[in-house]
């Protein structure tokens, strides 16, 4: 078997809790801001190692994997990682958490910075701010210093067109690696069936 399938966001409601895993591959900050209310795992795309991820959670090769991001692009990249690692049962949730929210899948309400006290700017807004700033800087330097700087504005413009057409944004992928997008949690946390409020007197 090769390749992953793409499922509509509404089908998230049909994914069983047992013997399937939903992996949210967004940044810790995005995940902290808004996430699925049902059990799922969180592992940012740039830290995701499919084999290691599955082994450490006791999941076998055939366990269905459902990948989720904001709009579907990073989930596709994650799905390709799983396919390359030899997993046969891989699915992308079309439209990501935005689409989930739109079709009644239970999602925690977006609470900007509630946990950290800082204002969280969504990745998409970060891209707009960064791209806009580069165009402005390119134009100013091009006017005052050397026309060569107009190239910068040209490149960013072309990049935005490319991103719009292919739905692949290089700048977003770079920005996910920025330290402020990782601040929320150390590495990978997960929300899958964490132990009860107080598991009384364990064995540790």
């Amino acid at each position, binding site marked *: 078997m090769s390749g992953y399938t793409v499922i509509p966001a509404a089908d998230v409601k049909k994914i069983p809790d047992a013997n399937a895993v939903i992996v949210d591959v967004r940044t810790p900050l995005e995940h902290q801001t808004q996430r699925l209310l049902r059990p799922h795992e969180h592992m940012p795309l740039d830290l995701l190692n499919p084999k290691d991820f599955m*082994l450490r*959670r006791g999941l*076998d090769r055939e366990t269905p994997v459902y990948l989720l991001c904001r709009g579907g692009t990073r989930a596709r990249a994650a799905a390709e990682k799983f396919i390359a690692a030899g997993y046969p049962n891989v699915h992308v949730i079309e439209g990501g958490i935005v689409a989930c929210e739109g079709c009644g899948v239970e999602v925690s309400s977006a609470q900007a910075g509630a946990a950290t006290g800082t204002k969280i700017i969504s990745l998409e807004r970060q891209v707009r701010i960064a791209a806009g700033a580069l165009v402005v800087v390119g134009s100013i330097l091009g006017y005052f210093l050397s026309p060569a700087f107009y190239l910068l504005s040209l490149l960013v413009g072309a990049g935005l067109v490319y991103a719009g057409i292919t739905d692949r944004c290089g700048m977003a992928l770079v920005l996910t690696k920025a330290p402020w997008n990782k601040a929320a949690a150390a590495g990978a946390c997960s929300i899958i069936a*964490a132990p*009860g409020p107080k598991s009384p*007197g364990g064995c540790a």
Partner: protein
Amino acid sequence: MLKPDVRGFFDPVTATWSYVVWSEGAADKKCAVIDSVLDYDMASGRTATGSADKLVAFVKQKGLQAEWILETHIHADHLTASRYLKEKLGGKTAISRHILEVLKTWQSVFHNEKDTPLDGQQFDYLFKDDETFSVGALEARIIHTPGHTPADTTYIIGDAVFVGDAMFLPDVGTGRCDFPGGSAADSYASTRKLLALPDDYRMYVGHDYPQKSNRGPLCLATIAEQKSANILANQGVGRDIFIKNRIEADKDKDVPLLLLPSLQVNLRAGSFGSSVEGVQYIKIPVDKI
């Protein structure tokens, strides 16, 4: 060496990992089940099989055949579903022969010898230390890793090491040693035995308590990771320090909520024992624990 496939099932109520172990690479479809959970509500005395049924469904869906139903030790925090699983899936229930010491220890508390034989015949098989066995084509052996309880056993199946509560994940540490027959000194020796295994062997733990580390439950660390990072028992920790820290950590620890039913049922290999007019009971010894 044939390496096993492992499917873990986490019970969030007791933070227990149960495992199904088999090999996709083998022609046979044999599997072992390790440390299963029977759901039990202390207040009502009611049992449920939600956790165990997940295992049953998995084994059936995969078309596996249960050869062994194994326990790493007599659990004090959850009830085993071994008897239920044996009914549903077949297979032999087995545990270390050291369980005979544990049966004797608790006899003076529960006086259940009528339906809890002291010779361990309630289990289909009792392993000797270092005995080898097989799960289908997979080679397996057991090693004695006491400390948490005197009968704790580790099953090594291929390169997968099922340690029960002898060690936990690096950020959690090791099993408590304050139960009757427990010993921090034994526990230290057991951790050294485990760390002497090959670096790339996969250690699967019997519980995970991830709350403190802000992560979800995980089941595995390599021997190399345990050597370098286990907070209580990494390679660099000396015997005296380990014992001191272990005793310190166990001071005034709560008794597990399900201690009394767990011990009685687990010592009977998953049975609630004899009945009066069709009713089975759990004893609650007064001022004995």
